[in-house]
């Protein structure tokens, strides 16, 4: 899993069966210093409470669909948690 920042929402009326009611958010993956790293992804919101600006963690690949109520859906990134706190061991900061 990776950290990410929610930076937007995606609205799609026409989508694959099984994705009805699923909220999609644009997420910028972050490194552990919370700097943007890599390209933005569209992630399904599996916690139903994430919103723009929030720090979240996302799961990628096949396991993303496992976060959905119906696990056989075409989803490859999912938000599976909203970060309350990130604690870095002293000395591990670069």
């Amino acid at each position, binding site marked *: *899993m*990776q*950290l990410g920042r929610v930076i937007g929402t995606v609205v799609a009326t026409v989508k694959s069966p099984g994705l009805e009611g699923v909220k999609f958010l644009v997420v910028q993956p972050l*490194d*552990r210093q919370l700097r943007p790293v890599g390209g933005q992804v569209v992630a399904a919101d*599996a*916690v139903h*409470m994430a919103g723009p600006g929030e720090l979240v*963690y996302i*799961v*990628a*690949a*096949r*396991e*993303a*669909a*496992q*976060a959905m109520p119906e*696990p056989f859906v075409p989803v490859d990134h*999912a938000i*599976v*948690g*909203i*970060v*309350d*706190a*990130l*604690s*870095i*061991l002293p*000395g*591990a900061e670069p």
Partner: protein
Amino acid sequence: MKLGRVVGTVTSTINSPAFDDRTLLLCDLLESSGEPAGGYVIAVDTVGAGAGETVLILDEGNSARQVLGLAQAPVRTLVVGIVDNVDLEAVEGVAKRGPAVGTPRRRHPKRA
């Protein structure tokens, strides 16, 4: 599987039910020499690993669910071991015993 070093923790109250009551560890990925490989993962702890320890990281979904005993869970990455030592002497042409991989003394007692 991959080598990593525990550098922090992630806490959340709003998350998929699979992560309830589990510890999420932020782990830097390591080369076998113990040097940072670049990148990190957030992994679910299954062994009671603590800060600063070198760990073995499993990054495959089916195995992860099997270890956790869950049929459906959006979990792919687990800490499945605490590394005592990595020995590279058996491989010709590779630098001998990795210097930095030895795990520092435990800071926390092993959790249940």
